[in-house]
């Protein structure tokens, strides 16, 4: 139905557009500032001359970032944890969601309750830590980064609901009549049809791994296993920069000035992959959240 725009309509639209533009700018500006500060002369940044445009273009911050072995090791570790972790997550999530989506899966309700209880109750920090250390002996290993949080109940529910609402039972029945086993059903029919929700899950799990900080803080001691976030913490929060990063600068003042540049560059380098990827998957996760949360 075509609605004629009354004057009230038009004023509302204008005010709305203004408000939303303000919101956009407020959200955008800190990110934009970090970007331009990372390529500007640190002295200009410190004296407040950098507001909308970079001043005194220089790539020293980035050069320092890529020269630091700790950062490079952290980057490599994070990429490994993200790829391996996300594959594990996806596999486990689908392996749990598909049986739960089948009406003829005896025990479905019981299993769902068992899983949902873990959303509300957990052992707590210390009991989990004790179990990881004393019983499983996986502290300070790669497994301590990959195994805790290997599946999320929310994501299982989202995928299960997606399968239930998108893949018709008749299709599965027809395949069974043709002699398809359950495994084949999963691999040949369910998985190809679930690509959108799997893409969303890959994004959510992947971002979770990329930004993972707590598990590393608690379970890792060897610097060689540290993910990027832990290195970020020591540089951004605790102000500890490795000596070889600033070794070729003599005066303390010079070091402090360059430290700011390094921090801005580091923020850009560590956040860029995620920020660049998510817009491509935006329409998928909007839909995925809707299906999962409202109908699940």
């Amino acid at each position, binding site marked *: 139905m075509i609605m004629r725009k009354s004057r009230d309509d038009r004023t509302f639209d204008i005010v709305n557009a203004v408000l939303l533009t303000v919101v956009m700018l407020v959200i955008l500006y800190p990110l934009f500032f970090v970007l331009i500060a990372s390529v500007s002369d640190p002295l200009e940044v410190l004296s407040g001359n950098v507001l909308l445009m970079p001043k005194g273009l220089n790539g020293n911050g980035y050069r320092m970032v890529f020269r630091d072995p700790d950062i490079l090791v952290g980057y490599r570790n994070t990429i490994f944890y993200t790829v391996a972790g996300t594959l594990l997550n996806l596999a486990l999530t689908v392996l749990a969601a598909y049986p739960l989506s089948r009406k003829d899966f005896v025990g479905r309700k019981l299993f769902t309750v068992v899983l949902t209880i873990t959303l509300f109750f957990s052992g707590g920090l210390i009991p989990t830590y004790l179990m990881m250390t004393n019983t499983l002996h996986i502290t300070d290993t790669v497994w301590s980064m990959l195994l805790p949080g290997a599946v999320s109940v929310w994501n299982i529910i989202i995928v299960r609901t997606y399968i239930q609402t998108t893949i018709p039972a008749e299709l599965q029945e027809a395949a069974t009549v043709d002699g398809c086993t359950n495994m084949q059903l999963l691999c040949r029919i369910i998985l190809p049809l679930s690509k959108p929700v799997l893409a969303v899950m890959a994004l959510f799990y992947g971002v979770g791994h990329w930004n993972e900080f707590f598990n590393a803080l608690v379970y890792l001691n060897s610097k060689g296993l540290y993910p990027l976030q832990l290195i970020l913490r020591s540089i951004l*929060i605790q102000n500890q920069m490795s000596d070889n990063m600033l070794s070729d600068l003599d005066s303390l003042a010079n070091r402090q000035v360059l430290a700011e540049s390094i921090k801005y560059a580091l923020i850009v380098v560590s956040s860029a992959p995620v920020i660049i990827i998510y817009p491509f998957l935006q329409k998928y996760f909007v839909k995925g959240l809707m299906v999962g949360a409202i109908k699940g």
Partner: protein
Amino acid sequence: MKGNFSAGEVRQNAIIYRRWRKRHNILKNWQLYLMFFPVLLYFIVFCYGPMYGIQIAFKQFSATKGIWGSPWVGTEQFTRFFNSSVCGETIWNTLSISLYTLAVCFPLPILLALLLNEVRNIHFKKAVQTITYAPHFISTVVLCGMVILFLSPTGGILNQARNAVGQPTINYMYDGKYFKTIYVLSGAWQETGFASIIYLSALAGIDPQQHEAAVIDGATRLQRIWYINLPGILPTICIMLIMQCGSLMNVGFEKVFLLTNDLNRSAAEVISTYVYKVGLQQRQYSFSTAVGLFNSVINFIILIIVNSLVKRLNQSSLF
């Protein structure tokens, strides 16, 4: 033989059939159980397993004796917590940060969704969405790093702006009274966009005929939002509110931990960071577990209370 079966016989046959059907389904679907098994194993080991260790909250745990060998001390760890000087401060910080966050960060995504929903231009709408979702994907460490950089007394842009208008520099990170506001406002910046997704989806499900009828009746845009859109997403709002209230005593660890320093600790220490401090840094395992258990129980009680309150007022509920 066409049946003259009695009602009792029919019911018995149905029960026998159902039992047979169950067994048939279990045997037929053995592969499904195989698929589900690894995940079940994961939850048993990593979620239910540690629950066994909760008992050390009632013991005096010693590493050499292990969980089994450590002596029982009843509620001694709990009384120790309640009598300690930091107990009141920690609980107050946790509660006030939660309530402050609820008051500020709960309505904002709803408002954003309501406004975005009214935009006709698809490109503008998509641009706003893409930009407002960005902060959600930034890690907590990076967010805190940005906060510290921006609030820095030497060269941070906030203080530079203050100086430009003649105001003196404030060292925000080292003054306890700013901590909670910093926490809440940075949280709003980070999560408002992403949190609005669920409300936008709910708004998409509102019957457009209601709007058409309202327009015919001469309603303004604001009236339509107030009388149609808001009530339309009320169930979603309620469920989200229940979930937020359920984690009232559950202020997350990472952001508080990263923004805390020695000077603002009294305003910043919350239960989760306290549990970490006494547990992993000071190695008082039993004490830390007791505090954590107290926290979980309180959370659960609050969740039940809020859920039943909302159930009384509405139809929506979590359970």
